[in-house]
């Protein structure tokens, strides 16, 4: 059986690469600055006899195609459609981080939210009610510390449940103002008619209303090429992209 694919998304410097290393056992150099991972890295791991292939996406603040990085992350989630997307959030600045989680939830429901850096949050006196966040988002939320390797097993259990389809989350959508909601309602049926269920209609509607040129051209390329023969850039381990 082909391994399940798991994508790691999240804001820059939330410890995605550290989590990636912890899970895959690979040893990629991590740094403490925003933007350290510029190309997506891949690795594999096994959890309870199930194989997973993990992709470490570049860290982004949004998925509104402001930069090449954001396009890479967005295209992966929309076109490659990983079995599970883990959104890594920094427990010490949840408010800003949640924006990205909400955006990812508009693109796919197969999401596990992973709140990382819990140890640091505890030190700073921040208490996070993960159950409450789970209720608010409608997808599993797991608190971990990738560095101290706590919470990893719970995270993987949730990932496995969603990958196998034994748990189908129902994300709570962000409700926009009436004006935008009305426009979405008008556009959504047209999108379903044209594109079918291949892409999340509500999200495509939002992107079209936002006139996201970069998404439109990606979409166009995707619709024309049909069988995907997309070139992917990846880093092989043990050898960096440089010298």
């Amino acid at each position, binding site marked *: 059986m082909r391994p399940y694919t798991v994508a790691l998304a999240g804001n820059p410097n939330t410890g995605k690469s550290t989590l990636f290393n912890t899970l895959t056992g690979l040893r990629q150099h991590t*740094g403490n*600055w925003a933007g350290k991972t510029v190309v997506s890295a891949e690795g594999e791991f096994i959890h309870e006899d199930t194989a997973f292939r993990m992709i470490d996406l570049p860290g982004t603040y949004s998925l509104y195609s402001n930069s*090449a990085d954001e396009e890479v992350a967005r295209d992966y989630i929309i076109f490659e459609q990983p079995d599970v997307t883990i959104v890594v959030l920094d427990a010490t600045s*949840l408010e800003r981080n949640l924006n990205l989680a909400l955006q990812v939830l508009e693109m796919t429901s197969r999401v596990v939210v992973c709140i990382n850096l819990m140890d640091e949050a505890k030190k700073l006196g921040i208490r996070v009610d993960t159950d409450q966040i789970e209720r*608010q988002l409608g997808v599993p939320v797991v608190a971990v510390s990738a560095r101290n390797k706590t919470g990893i097993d719970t995270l993987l259990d949730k990932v496995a449940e969603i990958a196998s389809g034994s748990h189908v989350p129902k994300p709570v959508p962000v409700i926009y103002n009436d004006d935008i909601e009305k426009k979405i309602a008008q556009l959504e049926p047209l999108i379903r008619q044209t594109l079918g269920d291949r892409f999340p209609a509500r999200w495509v509607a939002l992107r079209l*209303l936002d006139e996201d040129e970069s998404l439109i051209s990606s979409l166009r390329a995707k619709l024309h090429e049909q069988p995907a023969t997309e070139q992917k850039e990846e880093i092989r381990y043990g050898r960096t992209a440089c010298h």
Partner: protein
Amino acid sequence: MDAPLATNTADPLDSLLGAARTISHGAPIRDELVSDIYSRSRQICKLAVQYEDKKKLQSTYKLDKILTSKIWGYPIMFAILGVVFWITITGANVPSGWIADFFGVIEGYLTAGFQAVHAPAWLHGVLVLGFFRGTAWVISVMLPPMAIFFPVFALLENFGYLPRVAFNMDRLFKKSGGHGKQALTMSMGFGCNAAAILSTRIIESPRERMLAILTNNFVPCNGRWPTLILLSSLFMAAGVGAGLHSLATAGVVMGMVLFGIIVTLTVSWVLSKTALRGVPTHYTLELPPYRRPQIWKTILLSSRDKSLNVLTRAVVVAAPAGVITWILGNIFIGGDSILAHMAGFFEPFGHMIGLDGYIIMAFLLGLPANEIVLPILLMGYMSSGAMVDADGLDNIKDIFLQHGWTWLTALNMMLFSLLHYPCGTTLFNIYKETKSVKWTVLSAVIPLGIAIAVTFIVAQTARWLGWV
């Protein structure tokens, strides 16, 4: 713009887009989207996050008051940089000597072995004097400084200091028309320009990203550190007493780095006033909390990922280069070796910019990797008659002196190394990232032009003033 809601046009996407435009009446909705998403985040956080003590949150940023302060920011930055260089230079000196001695002994055995089986002289020449010696050079000169510099740099990076450097230098880059994050990509260039070119992806605006790409090679990468360190140690700090020697060397290397940064800013400024005109964009630079690096893990990882890789690459390129240099130096046409003919050809130009024909040739042959410029130069010199048994750092200086080197030659070689075109791998990455032959060529030609101009001015001035 008006478009029919649904038509049977060839591209269904166009009709969808048309429909979207009709529905939205051309009013941009990005701001509303973002503000709704933000208020939802805030709402969730209000329900789920509690702060015991707001003051505690600020404590991690206390250090920033000093490290990014207007008064102390720069002095601390230079002090840290200086200490890193000093540790690298002092620490690398002794093991470099050991490794060179070790290879010298091995070479002796190899030579004895070749003589014992009566191997032909050319075979010994190609394999031992070319292949083995070239490789040994690279390892003994490059391994120790890299094994110290990379882990120290990685520790600083994991601690969270790099974004503070970017924060400090932001104003300078803004003034020169670039992007504040250019300071980050520049810092990556200290490790490897080719990797730094990839890291420019964090800069959103294409114009500012191009500035960062075009100026990246003005900071020395790991392939050029050994050249800078070795030459400043042998020539620039020569008159200084033993105790202060490594301090003086670190000072000279630091001066080179500062000069490189000044050139980076100047070129950015000129380009942003000419070919890449535009207003700097706004951006958020995140200052992450300081985190205590996992010291051993960082050291081991950076040694494996960086030092070993760079060394492997250097050896892979240096070994054949050693063979080629030996062959060129030992095939004689009309009394002189091919190498000498080639060096002779470049000699007038080399002299004009304070270098010589061999140095120019070493830089040309060193295009694939900056690491091999110095080994090629030494092999070139050694094959051209003056057969010195170069197994110590002092002997290297003798070789240079025999070929008429002065402090000016050393200085200009350092300047040329700092400023000249990036290595082949970097150029290839620039092409991959920009998809433009024009910009790739420019990213080699601009630095080369600057390198020639600067060394020319320095050489002519020094000679005119009668300093050499």
